[in-house]
């Protein structure tokens, strides 16, 4: 690990003042410290933002405001979140381990970096995300956990190629729930819809988000709760617990009898950012909540998907997961 200096910020404004390109904010450290140990991240300075009063959570049926440094375990167990946004609790509790959820923060989870092996191991020479311009090792390598939607594939030697995925579970639920991200910068606050907060790789895979180096995430907000009764987070993975998603689905339904009034649908593990399909959501709206409807939406959501040697199976897996998650959401929380 590279040497670094450390300070504790005293207030959000002071934190913003101290931010620059060589400084990283420290939340739980579960991702950042891990990457620093392997030399993937090497900030000169760590700014601890855990003690600046951003850990509060307020949640009711009319909306939620989640502090940037609220721990994943506190958020998942917050009574107002469990009651009104169970999709978010379900997604959070599907990720990591109890120990890591006690450490990880809301903002840290938004900023979580990919688990692509070629990104995480500096012994691999090619990674446009870690070392811009070096190519993409995953395209011709082991790509089981990699993207099938929205990726940049100009060949393994292109400086633009990237098929990394966003590994967060929380983010997938936030996409389906229409969350907004509040950030503070030197010129004041701005609010970014979460679906615009993360980027597709485009021609610059090094950048995961639109957050600027001198901006601090202060909160995540949720609109009125629409899916309190009918939601499901389905995570398909190589083992039952404590593993990253091959494919995950956050599904929320607003039902009127058996008719879908509106739907929220986002996929994890398939793209550089959670993949929300507005087209699939539109195909669900005002339709009967039947397997036929769900299958049509699944086909639409996976339109344009492209798989590789080790992950082509994820296209069909994602469709099946969508149908199953929507079916479970229709039934609501299972009765014991």
């Amino acid at each position, binding site marked *: 690990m590279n*040497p670094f200096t*450390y300070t504790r910020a005293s207030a959000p404004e002071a934190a913003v003042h101290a931010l620059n390109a060589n400084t990283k904010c*420290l939340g739980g450290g579960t991702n950042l410290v891990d990457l620093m140990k392997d030399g993937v991240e090497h900030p000169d300075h760590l700014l601890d933002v855990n003690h600046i009063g951003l850990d509060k959570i307020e949640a009711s049926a009319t909306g939620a405001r989640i502090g940037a440094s609220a721990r994943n375990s506190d958020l998942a*167990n917050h009574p107002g979140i469990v009651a009104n946004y169970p999709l978010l609790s379900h997604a959070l*509790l599907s990720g990591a*381990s*109890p120990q890591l959820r*006690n450490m990880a923060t809301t903002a840290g989870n938004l900023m979580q970096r990919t688990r692509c092996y070629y990104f995480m191991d500096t012994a691999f020479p090619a990674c446009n995300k870690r070392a811009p311009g070096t190519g993409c090792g995953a395209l011709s390598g082991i790509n089981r956990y990699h993207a099938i939607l929205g990726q940049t594939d100009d060949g393994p030697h292109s400086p633009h190629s990237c098929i990394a995925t966003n590994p967060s579970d929380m983010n997938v639920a936030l996409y389906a729930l229409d969350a907004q991200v509040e950030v503070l910068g030197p010129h004041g606050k701005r609010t970014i819809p979460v679906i615009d907060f993360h980027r597709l790789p485009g021609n610059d895979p090094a950048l995961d988000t639109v957050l600027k180096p001198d901006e601090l995430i202060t909160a995540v907000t949720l609109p009125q709760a629409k899916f309190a009764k009918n939601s499901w987070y389905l995570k398909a993975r190589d083992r039952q*617990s404590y593993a990253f998603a091959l494919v995950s689905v956050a599904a929320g339904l607003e039902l009127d009898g058996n008719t879908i009034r509106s739907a929220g649908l986002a996929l994890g593990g398939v793209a550089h950012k959670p993949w929300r399909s507005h087209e699939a959501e539109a195909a669900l709206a005002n339709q009967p909540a039947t397997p036929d409807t769900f299958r049509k939406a699944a086909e639409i959501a996976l339109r344009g998907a492209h798989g590789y040697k080790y992950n082509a199976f994820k296209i069909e897996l994602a469709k099946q997961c969508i149908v199953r998650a929507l079916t479970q959401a229709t039934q609501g929380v299972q009765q014991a």
Partner: protein
Amino acid sequence: MCNRPARSAPLHPEAPVTPCTELDPPEQDLLQSHELELTRRHFLAASSVVSAGLAVGISPAAAQRTSASAQANMVPITLTINKQQRTLTIDTRTSLLDLLREHLDLTGSKKGCDHGQCGACTVLLDGRRVNSCLTLAVAAQGAEITTIEGLGTPDNLSPAQSAFLAHDGFQCGYCTPGQICSATALADEVQHGELSQVSFETGHTQHPGSPAGSPAGVEHPDLTDDEIRERMSGNICRCGAYPNIVAAVRQLTRNGGRA
């Protein structure tokens, strides 16, 4: 090498910096120099600028610069470990796990993967289980840490220790301190009605019979073996003692955390 100047602001305004009480300064430098290259340089440079400069072919001024930047990464911290307040000066890179094992000789917490994947390093921080390998010691400033050494004694085992002993919840024992710290926190989480992913699968996210939207935490989730496995999934056992670990946690939680 970071050339950022030393920060003048105190790390923790509420807790004034106090001198190291663990070791005399020369011993402390020696101890830290064993494991940290930067600290070794700092030690050499600080103890004999001229000879160090001659030995490695750099000017005294350069040696002083090295010393200054090394100083910027050495910080005094105070935290409470097993109810004992500790104050010492550490390199910012020191994990809480290395602080415990290498600086304080509390070797009960184990280093398995050092990447937050195995759980052997699990300790309680302000009562909550965390991976000490991914916790920077400097960020734990002011916290209360409990390690396996602080849970019980051979003559007075903690409920979780008794349960693991009663059910033979280990083989080689390397993961056991982490397993026991984790199980200790698990019992507390269950007492507080905290949920797991399995709670959603089984519909135990709210009080039975209460209207939808009632707050969580009013009922202890029904702790089936599936729940126990899910809640202990952050602790890997290479020997595969899982059935006995589940039995130990079952006993622990059925007795409300009292063995």
